């Protein structure tokens, strides 16, 4: 549609888009890393402080020079967090500071030392979380790019998951109980999840477009409604016979997405991550290289300009929310088909974590993968922190909040950067601007940050 009206408006928007994409990208990555570093630093002091007030018989860590004893070892916590998420490739802290047989990575499957293999349960959990967060992160990101704040990914995921479980269980008898039948059922299940989540996402989209109802509020409400209605439906109608929890019947084994290399107990399937990566690249191409994706982005950055250039803003809103909901719904399908094998009431907060993933990724589909991996590591590592240390694993929740807080304040890092290294803006951009250009460049970054937020 936007093609029908070429000219000044369009050229202006394109130059705007190019500027945002070009400059804020590197900036964003730097800010994400700075936020992560600062969160770990603040987390370090939180552990230190709480280790001082907690009660224990022997100090886990003694501060050099001062000789003060602490119940928690802040170095160990972060080491266990990141090492544990990978299943412990590094031997540090096991018996002593350094294991005599220490090697950074031992590779038993190549005939190296016995010990760590990448295909372990802890790393499987990290990867499983990463996979699910790729979907919910993409879901939030696509809505964000269209200028919509979809807090409802959680509800869309719940609906998509329920529909997947019901459809696959219902259709299972119609297909042969083998690999082929399984693949067909998985395809149908994922499609059902996408349709369920898409429809659930279309509701706030339509309400926003045609009744001007704030999508932040309606999606929060729809989350509560989805959780409660799904719970009642399963409790009253679809509950599996003899199940002690509120859950549907199990999806047949052959219709679940199983692992190739990882242990079956890890609830992670490489194929699911592959579907996630395909969705990720697909969404990136859709946003950057199709006219529909272009309309969607323009409506997000300059709604008025989009209207002038002939974009149907109302329809774009509904489309964006439907697409966002469908991605959340597929996340629900993958959760059912890969992790649980059925719909159960205790659904993790994957949709809410998707918001944090998308924010950290700067709402860019390509950024969603590393952001999802980071939060996957935090999730997988939290369990190990609980097992291996006395520090409450809830610490990871605090870290998550801090990361988002720091990502939200790029101005803070810019001020620090300016104070430390006055010429840093040029330096980080590979010297594409000479002296005197720095001020203009920084201003442009400011614009980018605000417009896309």
């Amino acid at each position: 549609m936007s093609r029908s009206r070429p000219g000044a408006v369009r050229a202006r928007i394109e130059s705007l888009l190019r500027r945002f994409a070009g400059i804020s990208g590197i900036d964003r990555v730097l800010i994400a890393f700075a936020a992560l570093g600062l969160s770990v630093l603040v987390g370090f002091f939180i552990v230190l402080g709480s280790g001082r007030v907690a009660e224990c018989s022997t100090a886990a860590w003694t501060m050099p020079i001062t000789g003060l004893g602490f119940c928690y070892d802040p170095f160990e916590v972060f080491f266990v967090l990141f090492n544990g998420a990978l299943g412990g490739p590094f031997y540090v802290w096991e018996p002593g500071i350094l294991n005599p047989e220490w090697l950074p990575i031992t590779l038993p499957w190549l005939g190296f030392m016995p010990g760590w293999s990448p295909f372990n349960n802890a790393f499987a959990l990290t990867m499983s979380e990463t996979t699910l967060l790729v979907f919910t992160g993409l879901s939030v990101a696509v809505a964000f790019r269209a200028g919509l704040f979809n807090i409802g990914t959680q509800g869309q995921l719940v609906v998509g998951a329920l529909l997947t479980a019901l459809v696959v269980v219902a259709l299972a008898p119609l297909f042969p109980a083998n690999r082929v039948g399984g693949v067909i059922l998985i395809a149908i299940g994922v499609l059902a999840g996408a349709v369920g989540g898409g429809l659930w996402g279309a509701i706030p989209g339509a309400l926003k477009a045609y009744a001007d109802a704030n999508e932040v509020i309606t999606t929060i409400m729809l989350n509560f409604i989805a959780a409660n209605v799904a719970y009642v439906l399963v409790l009253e109608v679809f509950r599996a016979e003899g199940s002690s929890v509120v859950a549907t019947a199990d999806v047949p084994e052959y219709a679940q997405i199983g692992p190739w290399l990882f242990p079956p107990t890890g609830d992670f399937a490489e194929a699911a991550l592959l579907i996630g990566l395909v969705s990720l690249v697909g969404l990136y191409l859709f946003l950057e290289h199709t006219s529909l994706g272009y309309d969607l982005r323009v409506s997000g950055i300059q709604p008025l300009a989009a209207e002038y250039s002939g974009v149907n803003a109302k329809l774009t809103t509904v489309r964006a929310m439907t697409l966002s909901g469908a991605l959340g719904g597929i996340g629900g399908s993958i959760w059912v088909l890969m992790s649980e094998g059925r719909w159960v009431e205790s659904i993790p907060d994957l949709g809410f974590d998707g918001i944090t993933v998308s924010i950290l990724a700067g709402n860019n589909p390509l950024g969603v993968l590393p952001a999802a991996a980071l939060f996957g590591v935090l999730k997988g590592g939290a369990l190990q922190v609980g097992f291996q240390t006395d520090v409450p694993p809830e610490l990871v929740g605090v870290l998550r909040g801090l990361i988002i807080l720091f990502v939200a304040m790029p101005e803070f890092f810019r001020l620090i950067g300016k104070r430390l290294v006055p010429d840093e803006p040029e330096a980080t951009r590979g010297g594409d601007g000479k002296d005197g250009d720095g001020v203009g460049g920084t201003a442009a970054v400011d614009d980018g940050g605000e417009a896309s937020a």
Partner: protein
Amino acid sequence: MRNPLSAVEIPVVDRFLGDGYVRNVVVMTFGSLALLALFGALFPESVAGDLSGAVFTGGMVAATARISAPIVLAALGGIFAEKSGVINIGLEGLLIISAFTSIYVAYVLGDAGILTGGNAQFVGFFAGVLASVLLAFVFGVVCIEYKADQIIAGLAVWLIALGLAPFLSTVFFGSVNTPGVGNIGWQYSAALVAVGTVVAWWTLDHTAFGTHLKAAGENPRALDTVGVSVSKIRHAGVILSGVFAGAGGSLLALGVGRFGGSGETMVQGKGFIAIVVYLFGNYNPLGALGAGTLFASLDALQTRLQQLGYGIPSSLVETIPYVVVIIVLAFVGRTRIPSAAGDHYETEE
């Protein structure tokens, strides 16, 4: 609220409302209660009779007061922040942090034998408010001084509190749930809700500060021109949201007598409901009181119906307020966000 005749007094109430939409919210709340009482009195054997029997009991009033305290007070706080131009989506986090702090302080004081019972709870209440104010202040600095995106920073406030409260509870007590400190009467909740609403309404509509606050959200440039610092007013708005939400969170936890930190903690989304409530009440404190009471009474009624043995699944009854909000947002009410809310303001010098 027990008096069905309150519906008749609307002409008097109208003088304070002066807004047809808010009036509708208030009338809807109290009118439906009056209607229920009428039917219950006429047909005591029917469902309506059972319902009114359930609604108009002391237990129901107490439960409504307890549930409405965090919702209404957080909503009042949200009004102050948003009227000044800062959207505070982190009310949930403020409720969580104040709920935990109030119990922690009350417990520690009692445990050390410094203060006991009511006195410890009294100090705990103010400690909770202080914790909420501190977190709100950090949020304000991040948003106003460092120009953070308000929605994202608000989410961060929620996430930080959601992690921090169970974390600290585990550090101190070895469990995400704290031990009990004894609960306070529902009358405190009811009284503070009433006082808070009146104070908020008076401050917003009848003081110079209230005018400045609204100007900071509607037309910051005009306020700047008059020589009032926009960022100072906005800081005040955010800190006030911390005060009100902190009072709500402390009352919530002290009303139960302990802090529960599993899952979404004992706050369970009341901060988000509070946002809905003040939008529903169109940024009017009295409207927020009406909408908040409506939500709280539906919640309390749902619990009561379970006890009476009605076969409706509680989860389904719980959805009613949420569905109502969507319908109202879509078809009835058009709340207008302050025009400069969510924007940064640069002083021109």
